[in-house]
């Protein structure tokens, strides 16, 4: 799962100025940290849904995602 987040999802997210980091996976809940543009995205939940779909398609796993935003304190949005 970590490899998938780092190697498959991360390049796509980064291509849009976003950033995703694997934090943990307990077999059911995948915890990821969103930074960069993702951290202040108003519709991040849609992206999280897409990530779930991707994992289901590529890894054949149903996961719940715990999305943690780390927004720089100096950004006002």
């Amino acid at each position, binding site marked *: 799962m970590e490899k998938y987040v780092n190697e498959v999802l991360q*390049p*796509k997210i*980064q291509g*849009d*100025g*976003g950033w995703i980091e694997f934090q943990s996976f307990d077999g059911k809940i995948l915890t990821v940290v969103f930074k960069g*543009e993702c951290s202040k995205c108003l519709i991040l939940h849609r992206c999280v849904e*897409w990530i779930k779909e991707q994992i289901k398609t590529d890894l054949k796993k149903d996961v719940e995602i715990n999305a943690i935003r780390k927004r720089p304190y*100096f950004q006002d949005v």
Partner: protein
Amino acid sequence: MAHIKVVRRSMRPEEWTDLRFGWLKRHIYEAKWEIKNLMIRDARQVSEMEFEYYSEDYRPLNKGDMYFTPDGTAFIKADVNIPEEMQGKELWFSLKTAAEICVKVNGKYVGGVDPNRERMLLSPYVDDKKTLHFEMMGYNRSKPDDERNPESLSVRGCRQIFEGAYICTVNHAVQDLVWDFELLLDIAKSELFNEDYRAFLNRELNEAMNLIDFDSDELSGVEQAKKYLDEVVFANDNYKGSGDVALIAHSHLDIAYYWRRIHAVQKNLRTILIQLRLMDKYPDFKYTHTQPYVYETLEKYYPDVFEELKEKVAGGQFEPVGAMYVEPDCNVPSAESLIRQCLYGQQTYQRMFGKRVNNAWLPDVFGNSWILPQILKKSGVDYFVSNKMSTWNDTNRFPHNNFIWRGLDGTEVYACVPPTHFITWNMPSQIQENWEAYIDKDTGGQTMNMFGYGDGGSGCTEEMIELMHRFDKLSVMPKCEHMGGAEFLEKNLKNNKSLKVWDGELYLEMHRGTFTTKSNMKRANRRLEFKFRNAEILSVLRKEDNTEKITELYKKLLINQFHDILPGSHINPVYKDAMADYDEIEKELDRIIGSGSRYFNTLNFKREGIDFIPNKNGTATRYGKKGNWVVTNIPAMSSANVRALRSKGEWLTVGERVETPFYSIKFNKNGSIASLYDKELEREWVSGDFNKLKIYTDCPGNYDAWDILPNYKDKQIEINVESELELCEKDTESATFKTVLSTESSKWIMLIRVFRKSRGIEVENIVDWNEKHKLAKAEFSLNVLSREALCDTSAGFIKRETHKNTSWQQARFECCHHKWCDISETDGGVAIINDGKYGVGLDNNTISLSLLRATIRPDVESDIGHHDFCYMIMPHSKGAVEAKINNIAYQYNCELIKSDAQYSGETFEPLFIQAMKMSENKKMTVIRLSEQNGARGKIQLPYKVKLLNMLEDVEGESDVIEYKPFEIITIGLDN
């Protein structure tokens, strides 16, 4: 007693007008027919024209579906039979979207929709069968083209909900009235206009709205409202505005920023398509587009659109501007790089359109080196445009908008620093703001106001042009004239005797961090600039024609000098792309440089002092490679055998002080120097912290990668000494002392080298950098009394004041230099020579060389990772010129290579050979000479040479080269 705030709940008349304006806009479309058979296929762009598809085939796309994925490109298609009720009418395609979509109809790219515009005209592309085959290529970016457009901002994000695509007819009466209201409401809401006029507008706009029956489905009264505005509002000329504003249509296109370079190909396509369509509709519309590189991508990948563009160029509506290949950063690239920007840029325009341009168009560049006027003038450029000094300076108001810019060597070009931003949407308030901010009202002629969405392209809209067509009807507006960029410059600046002169660099009082951010890129750029020099010289000497290959590689370097690439203000994938490009360029240049049996000095002066030559059995280490420090003595442009010497006895004593032939040094445990006593000059160089690593908290706010703030010294973090400084390597020529420093997250190895035969003290820094919001500097407090420092520009030096008497010096607390900076008294001083650092602070007797930053926006992990870089401390007698610091710094940066090439020509000393290359027409050898010590003189040659400009046009012939301070001279020798 409770205090009750009274809130007004009833609507003010102007709010009532706004509300009805919103309703009016809902009636722009007369009829809408939904396209229900759209199919979509998701993909991701992997190169300029290659896509990795996520599915084998297309799937249906219906209203309400999610579409677009992170960094995704979507291909959307549909075949549409135009419904009978719409046939024969003026038809439009409408798609409200957050994405950037290029639209192909019946096999031809015809237009675009994006967050700034939702419709495009279809009628011209309807075929005899009344069918439309749509093919769309859309990409959705989390960062819209233009963040200043609130509508764009509100819909940003990678996953979007499809709102449907339609074929429509437009109610032009409503649309016209909407544009009228758009224009007048902007004035009514702007405090820049006369208060009484705004009250008049608020009153009369309400009256006009009263004529429309919003309760009726037909929206009756639109014609009457339009008539009312014409007869009451536009006819009122009691309120007189003033001013004379030139409106230049332009779209700023960052080649890479929050997107990769590969995406700029389609951003440019969409921008151009949109402007071409506007030109069809509005014959008076002229659009100004820069960067020959993006024209090249259009020509290569979309030749049909390029042919159409060429027609519009020939017709005078589409105006290529900007002599430079891209809009480069104008601080960090060397003089030769900036020359190549002009050479390849002008060459591209000449080939495409049969003409060069006479302007440099650099609206978004982060300050401009003082060497530019000469480079521009000698590249056929008389006019310079750059916005940021007026709109972004954080301390001082730049005193001119239209002026003459005098360069370091005295060359002058006409310059325009427009008073306001280069991205506006042609609103009256923006135009008024420009006029009010314009300083040179009495001397500069018209003021330049650019309009058009940008950053990621997009450009002008119908609305911007429609508003422009109404400006003449408003007496309260400044006089406005729409024109091209070159036309503005020639009309207002050419032969204008009233223009004031700015004699100095165009320092931007902002973005001071861009001299340092992405340290590895800057070092690679410097290294490659010198490798290009070697590769071209050796190609000439060996009579090899590598022109095409070198041009291809040079262009790649130049693209990466774009002002959001080399400065470091971009997302992580852009960094990876650049580093991959640098690797590729380096491999190819190394292949061209080749090898040989002897060491060849490509410098046009004697290579003396010390050099490091790699040798796997060597007794010294530098940049992780074994080798030897050797004393070289190789004449200019010649070769020699170089060998490490056997021991000649002890030359170093290590005790409480380290004794070398030149110095008695007292080191601190952390590698800083407590005392550097010069035995030869009998003086102490240290007065305070010297070679002291300092790491500051560096939190500049939203412009994270761009800025260093003046308060950066407020918080310094603790640096631990993990391993105290001790001797770790010693041979016959050099001795290296090592200390290991650390912070909570980073490890910093400092290697300090002293030499038997050199006055230089080299410091290598091997860093595992894992910081956030930090700025590392090496500080040198010198026992030198001087109020100025000399800073290399790569083609001469600038004298910068080191005192802080006025706000102008205070604002320049961090500035850009190239290979060296120096603070000296008349009989001695210290130069700090670097191999890829550009940011430096100069504060009284202290030099602080910026080494590394750690910013998190736009790149979350900017500069995190491994770094290895060197600088050289060079105390010297007399001043920097007499001490030949230019020569030493050249040698420090120019790798000693192996080659069996031979040269029998002139060495042109005391000028520096900046480049030697085959001419673009392959008939000459071109030699670029640069005066870098501020001297005047002449060189008598035994033969005549052609005198060239930087575009390699022959301008004369002579056997004498006369030069003046800081002049760059290009000559040609027939092959």
